[in-house]
C-alpha cells in the first residue's frame, strides 16, 4: 500500500506537468495513442522473448517519431497509427497465446500490486521527465502558445515538438507499464484540463494541475483500499468530477 501511494504520487506529479503541456498543445489524442502504442510493443517483446520494457520503449519511441511532426488538425494519421498498433497487438497476443489476462491488466492496471523496484523505476522516470521539462519549459511554453513568434525569436520549434512528443511517449510508456494505461491517461488529461479551465496563468495553473492530480490519486487509492472495485474507476471519477465543477464554475462566472 505504501508502494502504491509512492508510485501514485510520482505518476501524479509527472503526469500533471507533462499533461499540462499536452493539453495546452491540444495533443490529447496523440497522448492517448502513445499510451496505446506500448501494447503491441509489449506483446511483440513477449513473443520474441526479449524484456517487455524493451518492447514498450521501442514502440513508444517509434510512435513518437511518427507523430512528433504532425500538424494539430491531422487526426487521421494519429487514428490510423493507433488502429495499426492495436491490430498488431491483437496479432501478437494471438500468436503468443495465454496473454489474455495480461491484456486487461495492461489496459486497466494493477496499481495495488506494485513492488519496491517498480516504485524506484517510476521515480527515476519522473525525475528525468521533470528535469527535462524544467530545462525546456519556458521555450516549450512559448512554442506552444505562439509557434510563429517563437520561431522568429530563434526557438527551435520543430525540435521541441519532436522532443516533447518523445518525452510524452517514453514517460507514458514507463509509467503505464506499471500502473496501467487508463490511470496514466486520466492523470495526463483531466487535472491539466481542469486547471486550465480555472486559470490561464502558467505557474498557478501548473501548480493547481499538480495539486488536483495528487488529490484524485490519493483519494482514489484511499477509496479503492476498502473496496472491491478498481482504483482506475475511483481516480477517473474524482478527476472527472473536478473537471465538471471547474466547467460549471467558469460558466457561472462568465
Amino acid at each position: 500500500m505504501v508502494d502504491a501511494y509512492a508510485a501514485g504520487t510520482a505518476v501524479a506529479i509527472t503526469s500533471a506537468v507533462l499533461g499540462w503541456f499536452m493539453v495546452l498543445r491540444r495533443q490529447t489524442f496523440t497522448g492517448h495513442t502513445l499510451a496505446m502504442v506500448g501494447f503491441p510493443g509489449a506483446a511483440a517483446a513477449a513473443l520474441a522473448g526479449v524484456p517487455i520494457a524493451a518492447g514498450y520503449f521501442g514502440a513508444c519511441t517509434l510512435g513518437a517519431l511518427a507523430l512528433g511532426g504532425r500538424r494539430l488538425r491531422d487526426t487521421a494519421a494519429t487514428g490510423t497509427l493507433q488502429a495499426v498498433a492495436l491490430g498488431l497487438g491483437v496479432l501478437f497476443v494471438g500468436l503468443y497465446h495465454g496473454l489474455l489476462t495480461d491484456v486487461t491488466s495492461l489496459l486497466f492496471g494493477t496499481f495495488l500490486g506494485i513492488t519496491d523496484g517498480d516504485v524506484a523505476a517510476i521515480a527515476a522516470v519522473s525525475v528525468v521527465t521533470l528535469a527535462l521539462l524544467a530545462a525546456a519549459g519556458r521555450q516549450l511554453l512559448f512554442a506552444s502558445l505562439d509557434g510563429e513568434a517563437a520561431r522568429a525569436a530563434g526557438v527551435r520549434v520543430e525540435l521541441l515538438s519532436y522532443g516533447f512528443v518523445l518525452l510524452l511517449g517514453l514517460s507514458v510508456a514507463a509509467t503505464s507499464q506499471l500502473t496501467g494505461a487508463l490511470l496514466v491517461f486520466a492523470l495526463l488529461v483531466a487535472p491539466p484540463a481542469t486547471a486550465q479551465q480555472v486559470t490561464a496563468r502558467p505557474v498557478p495553473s501548473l501548480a493547481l494541475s499538480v495539486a488536483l492530480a495528487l488529490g484524485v490519486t490519493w483519494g482514489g487509492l484511499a477509496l479503492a483500499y476498502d473496496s472491491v472495485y478498481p482504483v482506475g474507476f475511483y481516480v477517473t471519477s474524482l478527476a472527472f468530477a473536478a473537471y465538471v465543477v471547474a466547467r460549471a464554475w467558469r460558466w457561472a462566472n462568465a
Partner: protein
Amino acid sequence: MLEAFVAGTAIAAACGVVGAFLVLRAQVFAGDALSHVAFTGGLAAAAGGVDVRFGVFAASVVVAVGLGVLGTRRAGDAAIGTMFAWVLGLGALFLALFTTHRSGDGNGAAAVRVLFGSILGLTRSDVWLALAVSAAAVAVVLVLARPLLLASLDPQLARALGVPVRALEIAFLAVVGAVAAEATQAVGALLLLGLVAAPAAAAFRIARSPYAALGLSAAFATLAVWLGLALADAEPRIPPSTAIVSVAAAAFVAAQVRFAR
C-alpha cells in the same frame, strides 16, 4: 463467412462515409472516444443483465449528443479526453462488476471480445442490424452532406448563410455514435478506428472534390474489409481485424507517398 462479408461491407461503407467528415472536421478523436463509450455501455448492460446491444447504442448515442451540445470544437480535445478517461474508468468498474457477478471466469475475456470484436462470429440477426444501421447512417449523412460540408469547412460562412451549424454538428455526432456502436459491438472498437481514419485520409489525398472523397473513402473502407477478410482466410493466424486495419493503413501510407503535396 458470408455473414462477415455482408456485415463487414455495410459497416465499412458507413465508416467510410462518416469517417470522411470526421477527418475533414479533425474529429477522429471523437470517433475513437465514442467507440470506447460503446464498449463501456456494452459492459454496463452485460453487468446489469440487459441486452448488450441496447447498452452499446444507448451509451454512444447519448454521449455523442452530449459532446455535440458541449461543442467538441470549442471545448477542444481536452474535454473529449477528460470525458473519455472517465468512461474508461467506468468501463473498468463495469468489467469488475461483470467478471465478479456474471461471467464468473474473472479473466476479462469479455472485455477483450468487446474491444477487438470478432467479425467471423456474427449471426444472421447481427447482419440485419448492421445493414439497417449502416443504411440509415449513410442516408442521413448523404442528406446532410451539403450543409454539413459547408459547416465543416467554414462554420462562420455557414452561419451567415443561415445553416444551423450547431444542430448539424449534434445530428452528425449522433450518427457517428450509432456507427461507432454498431461497429464496436459487431467488429470491435479497433476496426472502427481503422475504418474511420485511414480510408478517409487516403481518399482526401487522392480525390479532387469533397463528394468524390466521400465515395472514395467508402470504397477504400469496403475494399479494406474484402482484402482483409481474404487475407485472414488465407492465413488463419492473422486475426481478421488486424488484416483489415493493415490493408486500410497500407492504402493510407500509399496515398501519402504517391500523392504527397
